[in-house]
């Protein structure tokens, strides 16, 4: 059973061993509206936590997706590039953005549990 953690920038990371799968939360997709474009990082790209990792665009605007943990990208999700609507349909499942080999596991401690994230969203409606 993997563990899922959440960031204040509305990303989720599902951790299995030293691999984290990262995407954006359902709340984030609801704020964005219909997503029409996604760009994901290539395998091998080294990312630092809090840094820009991917791009998502709705009809309205382009937004950056940040990585909540540092590491090396092992896979970008080609499925969401081909069909960006997947992100709206299943944001915390098939709509994942990229998988990363986590290099600083202690960064995970700064992230929120699902319950804490839900509370955070409630207290910070945009």
């Amino acid at each position: 059973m993997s563990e899922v953690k959440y960031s204040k920038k509305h990303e989720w990371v599902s951790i299995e061993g030293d691999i984290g799968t990262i995407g954006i939360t359902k709340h984030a997709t609801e704020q964005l509206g219909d997503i029409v474009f996604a760009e994901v990082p290539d395998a091998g790209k080294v990312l630092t936590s809090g840094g820009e990792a991917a791009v998502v665009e709705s009809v309205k605007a382009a937004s950056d997706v940040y990585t909540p943990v540092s590491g090396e990208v092992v896979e970008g999700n080609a499925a969401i590039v081909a069909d960006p609507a997947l992100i709206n349909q299943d944001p915390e499942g098939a709509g994942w953005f990229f998988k990363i080999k986590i290099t600083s596991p202690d960064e995970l401690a700064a992230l929120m549990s699902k319950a804490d994230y839900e509370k955070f969203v409630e207290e910070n409606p945009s």
Partner: protein
Amino acid sequence: MSHLKTALFDFHKASGAKLVPFAGYEMPVQYPLGIAGEHTHVRTKAGIFDVSHMGQFSIIGDESVCKQLEQIVPIDLSLLKLNQSKYSFLMNDKGGIDDDLIVTKLEDRISIVLNAGCKHNDIKQIKSVFKQPAEFVLHDQLSLIALQGPKAVSILESFIPGVSNLKFMNGGSFSFKGKSVYVTRSGYTGEDGFEVSIASELAQTFCETLLTNADVAMIGLGARDSLRLEAGLCLYGHDLNPEISPIEADLVFGITKHRRETCDFIGGSVVKDHLTNGIKRKRVGIQPEGTIIARENAKVFKADKEIGLVTSGGYGPSVSAAVAMGYVDFDCSEVGTSVELEVRGKKYPAKICLLPFYKKSYAK
């Protein structure tokens, strides 16, 4: 700074709209349907737009009004039939466009719809060219509500009988709940539709009445933007500004034919020069080849040389593709020219294309 509100402000809020500052007003950018959903709704059914932030302006006076206004608006108002509307501009002395507008000829007046962000300056400019007396009225107590989409005609006809007889870019006085309203068959979405000028105290009732028809939905500025972009229509302050001439903007139809010869209006010498000697840049449609979305201010390149700028760009839900328009060097403006768009530091292939991206036939 507090923002102005239209008469429908509370109604927008109650309808679940997300409100944003726009041209000094707090306006709905989207409703719960969402931008793409609202966009498609207008293309297939009918949508209500609150455009009351726009200036509804009248110049009342004798026959001298037309001639005086023609100094700054480059059309021949004597050719306009009663209740006929025309798209044109407010010109400045650099030959640039200070605003784009719709002029309608009424019995005792010329009525003009001005962009919200420009209206006060426009009125100052218009007044400054008038040497003979006329009465100027900015109708703050009127709301302007558009109903747009293929079902707009049958729906509006059911509540305001007679409007279906209007031809595109023509208007008339009608009655709603015993009160007089002025309706024009026009809009800015690329769809058939109407704009209804109505007393503000009736605005909400009017919307609620239209919404009793299940095919009608409220539409925000977000979808208004994607609809007009697909239709190849300019947004003032983005695709048009005081430095751009109507010729560069490829909007020569906004200048009456014989006035393209005489160019006897403010900024006419620049327009004449552009018509005779050509232009250096031109507004064009730009079609990205892949899925990349190039938005406003994306640079346009050809063979590593910067040749222009995107002035409006986004995703077109009805054409299921990225769409853009912008200005490029005239010698790169031919339809079919291969160019590149710079997005987030990378260049992506695109082609100069014809506008509009989405075409609909109007009721002529």
